[in-house]
């Protein structure tokens, strides 16, 4: 049995979802580079709003209220990526990236060749190339993605990014380094230049 006030809040939220859902979804996709994660975050936001509906002050801007909740969910999402399990995953991937690129002395392994020769302008203007890279970013481990989003999307300083992600500065540099190597490898694998 649902009470009438619950019915009431449910229909209000349904209305808000229609009005602001796409804005929230777009923002979450931008901040996480993942449609799947973004959908989950919008869902969690609506659920939290439903549970805390009596804290919403009538007459205040619902969009502002929802976005406050959503932004907290985004922060939580990146913090949660700091669990032992996902740390192990990104550590494992990091090791693989290191081994693929460097020998035991830390010199570039022979197998690594430069990506492109003097075609930069052309590549940046190529929508296909950009979309391959986009896809590569989407497939990074959550924390590495957090580094990319913080640095390139939000233009945050290093200290802020490491605070957001709950990691040390040296960890942050290493992740940024590994993320870039991984993106480079992913581009090499998935972007075929016609030659």
């Amino acid at each position, binding site marked *: 049995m649902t009470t009438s006030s619950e019915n009431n809040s449910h229909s209000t939220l349904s209305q808000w979802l229609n009005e602001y859902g796409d804005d929230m979804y777009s923002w979450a996709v931008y901040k996480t*580079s993942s449609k799947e994660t973004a959908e989950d975050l919008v869902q969690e936001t*609506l659920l939290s709003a439903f549970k805390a509906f009596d804290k919403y002050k009538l007459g205040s801007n619902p969009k502002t209220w929802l976005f406050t909740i959503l932004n907290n969910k985004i922060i939580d999402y990146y913090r949660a990526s700091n669990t032992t399990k996902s740390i192990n995953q990104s550590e494992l991937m990091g090791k693989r990236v290191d081994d693929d690129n460097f020998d035991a002395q830390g010199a570039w392994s022979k197998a690594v060749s430069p990506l492109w020769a003097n075609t930069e302008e052309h590549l940046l203007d190529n929508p296909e190339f950009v979309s391959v890279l986009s896809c590569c970013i989407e497939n990074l481990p959550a924390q590495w993605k957090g580094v990319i989003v913080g640095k390139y999307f939000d233009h945050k300083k290093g200290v802020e990014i490491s605070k957001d992600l709950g990691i040390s500065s040296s960890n942050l*540099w290493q992740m940024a380094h590994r993320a870039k190597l991984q993106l480079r490898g992913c581009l090499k694998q998935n972007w075929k230049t016609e030659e």
Partner: protein
Amino acid sequence: MNAINKILMLSCQQAAILGAKAGISGLSYFERLKLKMHIRMCKPCEDYGRDSQLIDQAISKIASQKSEERVELTQTQKDKILKSIS
């Protein structure tokens, strides 16, 4: 790794990490000097630096494109979300 780089105690891997640090937190004078000297003597690192810059530019381009991109929830997605709160 050649002899001078050995003296400077900077491997290519460490140089690449310094490069990432430079882009995020900046480098000290000595770090900048070490990196510069390493790259000057190391062709693969010079090549990597170029790749790295290109990736930087491409990600920045993606960032500005995505900031204007609007994605919409489908009706199925909306129904699923609403169902979860009922």
